[in-house]
């Protein structure tokens, strides 16, 4: 049940950058002045009509927004219960929701006079989006990517290089997204005067979680008017479902509906091989506890001594031991519910979407779809589910082929 003492879920974060216990600014002193400057610049931009005019123009003409809200008729019939809509953010330029946020941060970076952009990436989607926007604006772009991810996401590495970005494989730690974020922070501390760190999710020190959420909220705002257009004025979704790694596509869908109590909100974490004591998963909320990493306090996968554990997921984009602080707060207050889906369940959903709707989803939203498959049959026909199809699966066909025992060699 949601916490009755809270009047609105849309007023956070507070002045300390907190969502309840979570969030904050846990960074070294070198970065603090820059983070405070960024916060001031963002606060100004938020109410500056010229900033949003620039965003709206680029969203429309460069990204292709609004993305469609699509009634998945065959999927609905197949599951035999709730009416299922897919928010088609996989149709955006670069193939995922990531570019919604990158555009906002790069416009801000340009207004701050920064000439060098750095980013971290896991699956490569945020890296590709950042490299794309940097190419468009002629900015230098450096992307940190775990050496292990460089290997398993070779097509995206090539894309970034084509777009003129320098991709630096990170070998520290175990070479995944967490380590890429560490090295991006090290770069930032070293090049703090000319460099803007374009974070790809709703995590990191304040103001990043709020800023990235605001840029991604275009997803939920569109859903609100698009659903009314198709289902009648004032009709709200009954259930929202989105996949969560750091949680930016989910925050983008959820945020505009947080104060609509009739709307059920469900986030889907990566359950990997199963959420149990073997810890071969990335379900920070279901399998972790609060801690401090990468500038914020949030639920983290960690051992008894506060050392951070590596996550495990078939999806490189969900392979992160933390989650955005606002999700931790929504979890603790009960406003949103969080569940987990295993690799095997996600693979099944991936194939069902291909066969029934002709949509090859990324492995990340395949987790969300797997949960839709679980609950839709139990719900009445007039119950509306909106699921965020946040990325397309072109990048994942090699991984999926391997798991299905299909030989891709020609």
């Amino acid at each position: 049940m949601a916490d009755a003492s809270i009047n609105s879920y849309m007023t956070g974060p507070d002045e300390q950058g907190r969502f309840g216990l979570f969030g904050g600014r846990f960074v070294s002193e070198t970065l603090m002045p820059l983070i405070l400057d960024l916060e001031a610049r963002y606060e100004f931009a938020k109410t500056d009509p010229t900033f949003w005019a620039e965003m709206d123009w680029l969203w429309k003409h460069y990204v292709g927004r609004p993305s469609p809200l699509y009634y998945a008729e065959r999927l609905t019939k197949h599951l035999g219960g709730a009416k299922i809509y897919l928010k088609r953010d996989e149709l955006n330029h670069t193939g995922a929701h990531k570019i919604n946020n990158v555009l906002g941060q790069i416009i801000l970076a340009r207004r701050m006079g920064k000439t060098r952009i750095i980013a971290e990436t896991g699956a490569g989607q945020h890296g590709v989006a950042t490299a794309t926007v940097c190419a468009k604006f002629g900015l230098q772009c450096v992307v940190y990517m775990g050496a292990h991810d460089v290997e398993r996401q070779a097509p995206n590495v090539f894309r970034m290089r084509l777009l003129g970005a320098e991709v630096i494989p990170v070998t520290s730690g175990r070479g995944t997204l967490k380590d890429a974020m560490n090295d991006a922070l090290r770069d930032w501390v070293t090049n703090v005067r000319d460099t803007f760190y374009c974070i790809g999710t709703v995590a990191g020190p304040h103001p990043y979680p709020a800023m990235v959420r605001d840029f991604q909220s275009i997803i939920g705002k569109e859903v609100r008017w698009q659903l009314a257009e198709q289902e009648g004025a004032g009709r709200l979704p009954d259930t929202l479902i989105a996949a969560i790694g750091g949680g930016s596509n989910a925050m983008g869908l959820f945020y505009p509906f947080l104060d609509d109590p009739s709307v059920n909100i469900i986030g889907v974490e990566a359950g990997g091989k199963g959420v149990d004591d073997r810890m071969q998963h990335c379900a920070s909320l279901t399998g972790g506890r609060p801690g401090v990493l990468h500038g914020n306090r949030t639920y983290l996968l960690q051992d008894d001594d506060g050392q951070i554990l590596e996550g495990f997921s078939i999806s490189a984009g969900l392979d992160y031991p933390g989650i955005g602080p606002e999700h931790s707060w929504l979890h603790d207050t009960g406003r949103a519910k969080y569940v987990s889906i295993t690799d095997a369940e996600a693979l099944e959903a991936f194939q069902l979407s291909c066969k029934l709707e002709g949509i090859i989803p990324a492995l990340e939203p395949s987790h969300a779809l797997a949960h839709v498959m679980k609950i839709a049959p139990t719900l009445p026909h007039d119950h509306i589910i909106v699921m965020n199809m946040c990325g397309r699966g072109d990048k994942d066909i090699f991984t999926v082929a391997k798991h299905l025992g299909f030989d891709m060699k020609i």
Partner: protein
Amino acid sequence: MTRIDAKFAALRAEGKKAFVAYIMAGDPDLATSAAVMQGLPGAGVDIIELGMPFTDPMADGPTIQLAGQRSLEGGQTLQKTLDMAAAFRKSDNTTPIVLMGYYNPIYSRGVAKFLVDAKAAGIDGLIVVDLPPEEDAELCIPAQAAGLNFIRLATPTTDAKRLPKVLQNTSGFLYYVSINGITGAAAANPADVAPEVARIKAKTDLPVIVGFGISTPDAAQGIAAIADGCVVGSAIVKDIGAGKPVAEVLANVAALAAGAHRA
């Protein structure tokens, strides 16, 4: 008055600069790091910074990252680090020990419990890299209340407007980070650092110790000359990482300390 305050008073009376040495607890194993720590005062080290390993040391360069990995792979825990300090205290009750690291292992243990245990182990001060003044309520204020110094970092980006905030709840000494960057990176240039140290000293009576980018006895001398002392970390940790015998590690520390004390 903590051991840190007493140490600076004694150094001032002798007209000497402070030499601060950093080692990582448990690197490459508990016995070796305990042996190195035991030998540091004899090598001329005035204050010991004892690193607490963390899986994600975002302000550290490769040398200290690897030290942390070796330590964690060897089974180091926060409890073992506190036990190591307590064992050192049995034979040395004057050399200050400052624990240095990141917040999560402390938060995970529980701040109140950590402070009681650290005090009991003979710890004198804390440097926690990812706790800026904006997060003082987390650990800084409770630590001061428990009688531990909370030593803050100031950096080249800490401008005049921000400096008072950085100094406000700092005690023991101020650690000036001589470069924008990570540990073990570019060398600090005394000519660039001197005006920065002067700028800070104009606003505080606390000793100002300079660290990051100091790796030779000459560099230690050059930096110590323009401040109240200097910190060397990566250069010592590199020797330990290379598997040099404890006696050789300590001989190199002694040379660095002699450099700082010449200033």
